[in-house]
Structures are given as C-alpha cells and as structure tokens.
C-alpha cells in the first residue's frame, strides 16, 4: 500500500536539500551503504548503546528500537502552508517521533510546504496521518510518501561540519580530515564519531582549560566518562605520564582508541576501559561484554587512590550517584574536576561534594559550570 503512494509521488519538486534524499532513494541496499561509508571501522555491534552515564538508572531491558542502527520510516508530506504547524503538532500526538517543517525561502511563493516526519518502524503511518488530519479538521488527507530511513547519511552530515577549534592560545582541536592551522601549537587530532567531545562544547573547553592549569608533568590522569577521549589525549599532550579513560559506552571506547591512534599515542600511555553502566554489579544482559567487564572492573577497582588528577565530564545525576566512586580513584590531595552541569545545577553538586573536597573553585562558560577541588586528605565519615 505504501509503495503505491510512493509511485504516485515519484517526482520531487521541492528545493532546499531534499533533492539529496531523492537521489539516495535509488541507492543500493543498506548493507552496502554501511560498508561504503566506514571502510576502516569494524562493524558496530547492535547491542544496547548508551550515551554517557544517562543509562545508570534505566532498567537493563531496554527496547531494541532505541539502538543506533534501528530502522525508521521517513515520510514526506505536502500540505498547505498555513496549517503546517498545527498539522505537525497533531502528527506528534498521533505517533510521529519527529516532524520537521522547513522554512520557505523568500522567493518561493508556492502555497504548499513539505513536512518531513520520522516514524518508528512498526508504526502504521496511514492511520496516524489520517487521524492527525481529522483532528485538525482537514477535509482531505494530504499527499505523502513513505521511505525507509537512511542509516548513515546523518552521521556523515554532522561530521562534515567540524572545523578546527582554538580552545585557548596554543591549543587546537583539529578534525582528522583537516590540516592544523597552526602547526607549532598543541594540536589534538580527532575523529569524534558518535562519542561526545569535539572541543566545541563549553564543558569540554572548561575541562581542557582546567587540565592545562593542573597538569605540570608526570601525573597519572583519570578521565571518568571519556567519550571521544579528548581529555585523556590532551592530558598526555600537556605532559601527563599516564592517562586512563573509562566509559560505559562501547562506542566511546572505540572512538577514543581511534583518536589515540590518530595522535600517535600507544595503548601503554592511554589505557581505555569499558565499565558496566550499573553502579553495583556487572550487567547481566550484555553477554558479549561480561567477560571484558568483570576483568575491567577488577582492574579499575584495584586502581583505587592511584590518580593525581581525575576529571568527570558527564551529567548531574551520574555525578551525584557516582560521587564516592569518582573520589575513590584519586590520591588524597589529588585534583578533581567535575563538569557537564548547568550553572543552575551547581548547588546540588556543591552539597554532594563539599564533604569530600577542599579548595573548591568554580569556573563558568555560557550556561555551563566546572567545579574543581582537591580531595580531602582525611575523609570524615567516608
């Protein structure tokens, strides 16, 4: 039924970038796309993927549809200009995961506008659209076409937009495919992929500036929630003797490993560990990672009180929950940095960490804050 709709609207006449989609539609099947775009990487294992520590408290049995490679339906609807907004809101109520309404260019005087909508794979698009049209009083159902969603186009697109960034004087973050503007400066070469940490975000910058102040040479550094590995690599470039990065997201670890190789840093200087997302026991669901995790957990556990500098750039809730774990890895008197928090969330962090840290200072950029302190040499009450 959906194929008949597609044939009706084969000729796409809209402007602004959707022409790329029309070309893609006659593209080879998904698997070929996948191998074309990432010739160097090993295939992504479609297990439960988590971003940073946001998964700490969701149940282990997450639905498969939330993984990175999940298929989705992309629907393009043509409707009248004046009802576009109402219609997209109605679509959201009736099952669309997202709707995008493009803005008209000034020269375009046509009455119709396109709504790009994304639906989960098993959703009944026809029912949803007719219900939405009904609810706002449209007499007829607007014309639309349904396509299977393109898996990797959007990843490539976001990567294309990275430019070299100067975080501070003498420190540049350069994407892999660009040349460093200043060859003399400290250049960190990155291929961020899908892990967090490109140097653009205020929290990454705050942490990099903090790192620059803290690292004098020869320290052991722990990057708690390493993402793309940017902080761990930066620490080594500033002069630390050893960097360790931990994360609960397997994509982050893969990404960090690649970035280390790009900067010619070997595994003995930058160690990476994948740890379980649950704060207590290792995950039972991820069979593939159980062995790796139990051995990694032991490694990380035995590394209590080994680090001179610990930085955790994650989110408010994980920072509060994992406070004891983060602090336990640092030597007494070691420097701790915490970020990924909004300035308005600072009071909670202060409450949680003031019994654990001395010399607390806060730096802020835009709406984001970074808290740094020294681990108390004598912890009262643990």
């Amino acid at each position: 039924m959906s194929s008949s709709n597609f044939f009706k609207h084969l000729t796409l006449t809209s402007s602004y970038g959707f022409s790329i989609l029309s070309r893609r539609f006659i593209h080879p099947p998904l698997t070929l796309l996948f191998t074309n775009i990432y010739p160097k990487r090993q295939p992504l294992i479609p297990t439960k993927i988590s971003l940073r520590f946001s998964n700490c408290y969701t149940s282990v049995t997450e639905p498969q549809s939330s993984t990175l490679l999940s298929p989705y339906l992309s629907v393009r609807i043509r409707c009248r200009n004046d009802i576009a907004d109402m219609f997209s809101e109605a679509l959201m109520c009736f099952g669309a995961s997202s709707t995008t309404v493009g803005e008209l260019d000034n020269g375009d005087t046509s009455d119709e506008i396109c709504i790009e909508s994304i639906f989960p794979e098993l959703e009944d698009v026809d029912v949803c659209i007719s219900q939405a049209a009904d609810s706002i009083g449209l007499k007829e159902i607007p014309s639309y076409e349904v396509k299977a969603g393109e898996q990797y186009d959007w990843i490539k697109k976001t990567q294309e937009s990275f430019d070299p960034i100067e975080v501070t004087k003498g420190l540049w973050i350069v994407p892999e495919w660009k040349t460093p503007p200043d060859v003399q400066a400290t250049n960190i070469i990155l291929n961020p992929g899908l892990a967090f940490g490109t140097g653009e975000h205020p929290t990454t910058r705050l942490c990099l500036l903090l790192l620059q102040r803290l690292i004098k040479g020869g320290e052991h550094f722990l990057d708690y929630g390493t993402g793309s590995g940017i902080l761990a690599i930066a620490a080594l470039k500033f002069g630390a003797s050893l960097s360790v990065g931990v994360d609960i997201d397997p994509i982050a670890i893969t990404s960090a490993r690649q970035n280390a190789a790009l900067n010619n840093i070997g595994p003995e200087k930058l160690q990476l560990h994948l740890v379980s997302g649950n704060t207590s026991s290792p995950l039972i669901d991820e069979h593939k990672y159980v062995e790796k995790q139990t051995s990694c957990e032991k490694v990380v556990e035995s590394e209590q009180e080994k680090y001179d500098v610990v930085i955790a750039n994650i989110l408010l809730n994980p920072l509060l929950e994992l406070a004891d774990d983060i602090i336990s890895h640092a030597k007494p008197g070691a420097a701790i940095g915490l970020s990924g928090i909004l300035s308005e969330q600072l009071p909670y962090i202060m409450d949680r960490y003031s019994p654990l840290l001395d010399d607390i200072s806060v730096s802020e950029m835009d709406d984001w804050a970074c808290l740094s302190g020294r681990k108390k040499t004598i912890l009262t009450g643990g």
Partner: protein
Amino acid sequence: MSTLKEILTRRPVAATIRLTVPAGGARPAPPVGPALGQYRLNLMAFCKDFNARTQKYKPDTPMAVTITAFKDNTFEFTVKSPSVTWYLKKAAGIESGSSRPGHVIATTLSVRHIYEIAKIKQSDPYCQYMSLESICKSITGTANTMGIKVVKDLD
C-alpha cells in the same frame, strides 16, 4: 510567540523541528539523529544540552522538544513537559483513554492526582501565567475527554 518573531528577524531560520525524546536519554540515534543531522546541527551538543536540562525529570519521560534550526547551522530549542494526556494515563495506569468518552468511563482519579500534575505543568513555559486552579480545571477537562472520572477521594 513574540520571542520567536525576534529570532526570525535576527537570523534566517532553516526549519522548525519537533521531537519527542525521553528525558535524559537523547542519543545520536533515530529520531534525533536523522532529524538534526539533516540540517547539520551539532548532534552531540544538543544531546548533552537536552540531557542536562532534563535531569530533574524521571528518566525516559517523553519530553516534547521544539528546535529552531538556523541557516548557519546553529540552533535553539525549548523543552516542554509531557502532555497532560500522558500524565493522566500514567497516573491511572492505563494505556489509552476510553473508546467512548462521555459514555464509557475508563478509570477514576482523585483530585490529589490532578493537583500533582498541575504542579508539574506549572513549570512549563506556556502555563506560567495561569493560576494553579485554572490549570487543574483544564486538566480535569482533558480527563473528561479521555473518559477519566475525577473524584474527591479514591476508596
């Protein structure tokens, strides 16, 4: 809506994107990935920003996000708390409203539930000017259209 006009005159808008994302669970996967990637927006920045701002909600609560993408690949977004119907369904523990609202009653809720929902909704940017009483009235109205009866006390 007046602030949106200001934005429109300041920077050229490329698109308006509406999404439903679980609180604290924004990932560069569908639907966030394709919708934002289309306009070359910084996926990671959005995910981090969104996750940080929704930390105070229970994880996986579906939040309605409206993103305004500008032609220079920057963006702004506002986050709205979940719809009243979602809260009502959750409070009553039912999957969907009554099939014949007005005739068939799906379930009942107490005024205490309505009050709690109204308190959450009050922090929504669009409801701040309303008194708690009027928010409660509007929620009760929505409940009636779903076939949920509101009683003073649940036995």
